[in-house]
């Protein structure tokens, strides 16, 4: 609609709705519904004497229940456009903000998130996630990387080598993500590249989520003997990081080609240039 905010380039365009959330992504002229939001799980407070009833902590992710908390229903956004990059600055609440940007000629979008300090004045530990939701019919299948190398196929509520009864639907479907998580159907593919190792999952068809920050108030009794409640300067830690969104839509998606593009982007984002700064009093000519 005319009230939407758009940023992008010739490869990828992002549309934001009137509430400031990502609403749709256009790639090569085709548009699909893709939303993004920050949410959090409340950490379980268990009885550490019972092996299967421990608190959420440094070793294990165990949400209190399946109810996920939303952080806001309206995002304040500011848009900056220029010849090299277009950016949407989003403020979700006092402790979550994000910059979404698309550089000229690049075929992916960046989501640079800033999360923390996670408030604990309600004495509740929190585990914050970012979630991308699409209409891709992934039928429970998603892909996670193997330490940046091959992609491993995952099927929700399933293990390849034994019959599993998943009693913790979130934690039981979380997998380690080092650089990439992806899902697809026969017409579309969505991949999120990370800048660090994170936990991730696809808890619903078409949905991808990644855990970005955690602050917990109880030890999980697996050995460390401390709650995962990191502080600095008397406050909870603030984490800043980046996700890279790559999408491919077509009548019949050429998945290997899209994956090849993802591989190049992955190399460039995980192995960026090393930057060295030097003060100088020389003129340009002398320096040259």
């Amino acid at each position, binding site marked *: 609609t005319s009230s939407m905010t758009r940023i992008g380039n010739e490869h990828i365009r992002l549309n934001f709705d009137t509430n400031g959330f990502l609403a749709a992504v256009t790639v090569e002229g085709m548009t699909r519904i893709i939303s993004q939001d920050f949410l959090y799980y409340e950490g379980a407070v268990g009885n550490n004497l019972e092996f299967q009833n421990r608190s959420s902590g*440094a070793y294990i992710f165990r949400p209190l229940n399946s109810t996920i908390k939303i952080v806001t229903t309206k995002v304040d956004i500011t848009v900056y456009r220029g010849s*090299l990059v277009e950016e949407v600055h989003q*403020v979700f609440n006092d402790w979550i903000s994000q910059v979404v940007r698309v550089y000229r000629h690049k075929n992916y979008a960046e989501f640079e998130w*800033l999360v923390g300090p996670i408030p604990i004045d309600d004495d509740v530990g929190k585990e914050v996630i970012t979630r991308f939701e699409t209409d891709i019919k992934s039928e429970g299948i998603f892909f996670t990387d193997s330490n940046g190398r091959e992609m491993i196929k995952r099927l929700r509520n399933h293990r390849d080598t034994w019959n599993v009864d998943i009693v913790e639907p979130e934690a039981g479907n979380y997998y380690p993500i080092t650089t990439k998580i992806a899902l697809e159907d026969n017409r579309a593919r969505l991949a999120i590249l990370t800048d660090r190792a994170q936990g991730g999952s696809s808890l619903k068809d078409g949905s991808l989520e990644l855990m970005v920050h955690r602050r917990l108030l109880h030890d999980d009794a697996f050995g460390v003997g401390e709650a995962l409640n990191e502080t600095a*300067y008397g406050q909870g830690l603030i984490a*800043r990081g980046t996700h890279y969104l790559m999408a491919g839509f077509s009548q019949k998606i050429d998945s290997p080609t899209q994956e090849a593009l993802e591989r190049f982007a992955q190399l*460039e984002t995980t192995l960026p*240039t*090393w930057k060295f*700064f030097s003060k100088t009093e020389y003129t340009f000519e002398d320096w040259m």
Partner: protein
Amino acid sequence: LPHLGFMRETMGIMQHHDAVTGTEKQKVAYDYAKRLEVAFRACGANTRAALNLLTTGNNPEPVEGHTRRPVKFQFESCPLLNISLCDVSEESDQFVLTLYNPLSYSTAEYIRVPVSDNNFQILDHKGVILETQYVPIPANLIDLSYRDSQAKYEMVFLADELPPLGYRSYYIKKTNEPSLKPIPDPAN
């Protein structure tokens, strides 16, 4: 060698499963961070020496046509660039940015440099003035009381044709002509 040795020892310690997964005690985490910081600073001497050899050669004589001898630069890393903070770029009127491409193929990368003003000019090694854009650093980051920085903007430019396993340097200087300040789009 002692510098590299300290980094080797640190990387050895970092292979403990508690360091990999973050299940170490908090005070151990502080110690890991301190060791990494010391190791990075120590190896900074090695990278400086290597980059000075690469960029100026080992020739103590003046280069033909120039009266000055090749200069040795202090190639400083800015470990807080991840929070848009760098003392050299924030406080200097002119500085050199050297980019080393660790990939085995030529690449292009958009570079973001935190700066306190919006009147810088970037020249590449041929003297060509590069296109730049300034974007404001997000208010939530600027408002952090313990992030000691004068930077208000990030200066964005495209570093193109970075050679594989090689470097390019850019000369960045303040000018008297301010660029357009980044102005947000009107709402909706």
